[in-house]
């Protein structure tokens, strides 16, 4: 029964698709999006054609690809938090979330449905931009494979951005605060990781120049960038455009890299996709926990009177630990509840399963 159920289309996704198909919003958004792409592409095309009489400069045509790719990624990164901001917060505002939660559908399925529907919109965006993109691709001599790779990477990046947006939506009451929080988290993910990366490299460089050992200059720092969607997509675009990517850079500076780091650079896209998917899963779990009324909130009461077995003491102790873990962070106002509490939850969950095993 469960298996058959999971094969069927996620009911939330199904509903969102019906609702979205009736909404005029999405058509307007798509039109605007294509307009932006066109406004950027058009001057470049014009420049190419009018630069010389009758001659078309193919290299300039190729330039259009990285530019459009960057615009596309930027727009999607900006649009996704807005798409997803209302996913849970909107259900709360409309007071429909409670009713969803009284159905046997798990909170994770609800989150999954919301994420899939956001990604569906992204797919629409990407498909709508294909005509313009393929001009850039084809004239630039890029293969279909690059287009497909690019689309896959955009979807992976949007899954991460979408899960962040839904997570923010699940812990905020208002859509606007959800949007802002999502921008902050995505910003930290993209710019924060790059800053930290540069900082570490800088520090290592500075100290090793004294120690005079240039080996392993990069340490583990490159791992920081595995979860960075901008790096993921930029690497692909730059590799396609110039023929040089992280893989080649890695080969060049192999002596400076630890063996693991070198290995990862050789399969950068694959590892990066894995990290993206893991992060996505993590944010989805946090979101599912945040909307779960029975698990997400109070921790002190897991021990109910009914569980008077030998494990009770044990559970009580873990609960205290959990409570302490929460109390240690009382000034962490910016951090959403579930962030602070997630560790505590895991502890009590373990305690739960211990209790149930008997």
């Amino acid at each position, binding site marked *: 029964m469960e298996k058959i159920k999971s094969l069927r289309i996620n009911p939330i996704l199904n509903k969102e698709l019906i609702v979205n198909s009736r909404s005029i919003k999405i058509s307007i958004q798509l039109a605007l999006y294509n307009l932006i792409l066109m406004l950027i592409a058009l001057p470049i095309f014009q420049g190419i054609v009018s630069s010389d009489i009758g001659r078309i400069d193919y290299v300039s045509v190729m330039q259009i690809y990285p530019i459009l790719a960057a615009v596309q990624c930027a727009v999607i990164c900006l649009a996704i938090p807005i798409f997803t901001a209302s996913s849970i917060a909107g259900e709360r505002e409309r007071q*429909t979330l409670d*009713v969803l939660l009284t159905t046997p559908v798990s909170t994770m399925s609800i989150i999954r449905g919301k994420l899939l529907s956001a990604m569906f919109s992204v797919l629409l965006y990407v498909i709508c931009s294909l005509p313009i993109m393929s001009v850039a691709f084809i004239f630039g001599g890029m293969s279909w494979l690059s287009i497909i790779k690019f689309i896959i990477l955009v979807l992976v990046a949007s899954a991460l951005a979408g899960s962040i947006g839904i997570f923010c939506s699940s812990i905020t009451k208002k859509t606007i605060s959800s949007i802002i929080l999502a921008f902050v988290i995505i910003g930290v993910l993209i710019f924060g990781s790059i800053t930290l990366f540069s900082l570490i490299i800088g520090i290592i460089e500075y100290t090793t120049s004294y120690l005079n050992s240039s080996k392993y200059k990069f340490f583990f720092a490159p791992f920081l960038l595995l979860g960075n969607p901008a790096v993921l997509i930029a690497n692909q675009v730059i590799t396609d455009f110039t023929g040089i990517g992280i893989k080649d850079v890695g080969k060049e500076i192999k002596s400076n890299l630890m063996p693991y780091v070198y290995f990862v650079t050789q399969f950068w896209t694959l590892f990066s996709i894995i990290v993206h998917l893991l992060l996505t899963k993590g944010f989805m779990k946090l979101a599912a926990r945040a909307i779960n*009324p029975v698990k997400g909130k109070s921790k*002190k009461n897991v021990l109910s009177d009914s569980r008077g077995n030998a494990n009770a003491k044990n559970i009580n102790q873990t609960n205290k630990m959990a409570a302490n873990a929460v109390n240690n962070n009382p000034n962490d106002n910016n951090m959403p509840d579930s962030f602070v509490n997630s560790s505590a939850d895991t502890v009590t969950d373990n305690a739960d399963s211990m209790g149930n095993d008997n």
Partner: protein
Amino acid sequence: MLTINHLCKRYGKFTALNDLNLHIDRGEVFGFIGPNGAGKTTTMRIVCGLLKANSGEVYVDGIDALNCSSAIKRKVGYVPDFFGVYDNLKVIEYMDFFASMYGYDKNDIRETIYGLLELVNLSDKQDSFVDGLSRGMKQRLCVARALIHDPELLILDEPASGLDPRARYELKEILRNLGDMGKTILISSHILPELGEMCTSIGIMEKGRLVTSGKVDDINDKMHGEAPIHIRTLSDMNEAVIILKEMPNISDISMNEDEIIAKINGDDEAVANLISNLISRNVKLIGFEKEQVNLETLFLDLTGNKEPKKGPDDFLSADQIMNGGDNSGEN
């Protein structure tokens, strides 16, 4: 069907439910009455798994609702006090959506959905958009939605609020049908007389506790038994009061300008005896009636919310009158 033992719920320091105990048998229509903030919604949300209790036990059909809420969700249908609907969704799609949330196949459940829409009188609206329905229609749609998985326990939080008398009547009919179908129904309301007509049992809640509960018939009997009698007489009222005071089963004697009000402890036989007794003692009776007590009076009584119904402040107790009313200021 539903058993609640020692349920406690705190919001921060505020105790919303304080050792609540409740039992509802299968097939009962249980009315949950209480003033604002008594904890009715809180109780219902805990039973539905929308809120975590601090301590206590909840069993639905023998299943521990607090620890395996997923099994409970197929047994309970919930109609919240405030509910929203989706934009751009038609009534039939709304029902399909919730059917799929319960894992039903759209085609298998079509007949059921039509049946439910029929039950709540929305058959002709199945292709309308839900956000375009009137409040009463949305309410009924919500009831139909809550019934889609054929729950054994239906929980309705103030379903009659915001409805006009006609919609209220229709809702009442729907609930009565469901009661006849053997569903256990827990329903909260402020509208007491209606609950009396609809419910088989009633529980009165206050400050997170169940003050009293019982079968409607029993409560009616009890109230009838405890209702004060109003006596009017041509002769001197003070004399009549003295006579009344001699009788063992009369209590709470008080009087106002033209009547004596007293409580009689006993059945109709005792009332008949009282009348013949008064007459034999030459009290010239011109009026003797038992006050009509309804749920509302009982409710106000039990919840200590003594809203002046007939201006009880005007009443002076018989003792005060006898003593010249000099200490009346103390009340």
